[in-house]
């Protein structure tokens, strides 16, 4: 709901900030790649993009959200194919009933826990902690004939021209005016064990997911340490 998306967005922004402050979080180097020809369920990316106006009012831009979503979905499928895997799309909004719906919701909760833990570390989470959804994920595996599921979320805003001008004025005046930014994160779930074998995020930098090329570059950066 309102709260949750907002909290997520805020958390994402935070993660972005932390990423800058502490250099990019890196996955441990020892992750083994998933076996070739894996069947990967690519969940329709959840993308919300907006325009940051001069006054700082972010306006939802459905056209950007839709192109960002479609570009990410296409690009992720292509990237998987390049790695010799077999992607298959699923819109989670069509699968929220029954146990599969519970698994998808649990994935949201675990993702929230992973993010929270990056903001405020729990002493009970070891560095190599294996986040899991439990073996209930096998329901997803058998229903959709898949070995892995890939979830992607993107949030962000783009500054308008007037906003950019205001930011320059602001700089002169010594006031920092945020220019917007976009974050993407993703998780890869092993549908036999339920383990989240990889969790990655990236701040968009110069790559614009509203364009096919930008989305592909962003995906390449996002997946650079993915065990594909």
């Amino acid at each position, binding site marked *: *709901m*309102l*709260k*949750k998306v*907002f*909290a997520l967005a805020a958390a994402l922004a935070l993660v972005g900030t932390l990423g800058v402050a502490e250099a990019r979080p890196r996955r441990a180097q020892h992750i083994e790649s998933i076996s070739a020809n894996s069947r990967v369920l690519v969940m329709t990316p959840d993308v919300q993009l907006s325009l940051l106006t001069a006054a700082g009012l972010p306006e939802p831009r459905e056209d950007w959200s839709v192109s960002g979503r479609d570009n990410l979905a296409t690009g992720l499928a292509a990237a998987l194919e390049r790695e010799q895997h077999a992607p298959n799309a699923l819109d989670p909004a069509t699968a*929220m009933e029954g*146990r599969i*719906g*519970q*698994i998808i*919701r*649990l994935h*949201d*909760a*675990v993702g*929230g*826990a992973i993010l*929270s*833990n990056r903001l*405020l*570390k*729990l*002493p*009970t*989470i070891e560095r190599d*902690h294996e*986040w*899991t*959804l*439990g*073996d*209930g994920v096998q329901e997803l595996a058998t229903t959709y004939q898949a070995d892995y599921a890939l979830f992607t979320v993107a949030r962000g805003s783009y500054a308008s021209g007037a906003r950019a001008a205001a930011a320059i004025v602001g700089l002169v005046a010594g006031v920092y005016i945020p220019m917007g930014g976009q974050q993407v994160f993703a998780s890869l779930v092993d549908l036999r064990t*339920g383990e989240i074998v990889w969790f990655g995020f990236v701040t968009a930098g110069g790559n614009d997911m509203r364009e096919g090329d930008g989305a592909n570059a962003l995906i390449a950066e996002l997946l650079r340490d993915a065990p594909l």
Partner: protein
Amino acid sequence: MNTTRRGLLVAVAGGAVASGCATIPLVRAGAYQAKGAAFSVMLARPWSDMTTTVPQPRGVRVLTLHGLQLNQLYLAGIAPGGSLMRVADRDTPRPTYRTDMSEQELVEFVIDSLATMNFQDPQSTGLRPQNLAGAPGVRFEINTRLETGLNFSGTALVARSGDNLHLLMFLAPSEYYYGAFVQEVDAMFASATPA
């Protein structure tokens, strides 16, 4: 977003600013006595103490293993007039503990508190007598769900000790997380001894 979360986050931020670095205390495995509770339990593994991060009413401690989204362990000693959740101001009505509550009313106090915490349609099942640290109490299971529709299961043990209410409660998503820890929690409940 309600003011609640604001309170939580202001507290988190305030704590982080004050200390320069926010840390969550670790509770070690072994005998553990929650502050304010006159009993101790044996913890089979270490837990993270969220009580300072997410402020609780007097006598209530909340621990977690992997984050409050995935498991919550309540240990509480609640004085008469006290409550299981924190409210922003004294005028906001909320369930409070009273010494003259019947066993069913103790369960109702817990369930109504969960509803006030925005757990959806919480239900108690399987009420049965069980001791808590030697005092006769009530053990029961909880079925509820979050606003997102994620089903949650729980188990709780409440008992009176003098004028106070003692409480142990574990809550987790029904999918995987509850089942993965309930046996350990059960043993922990049984291990409670007067401190």
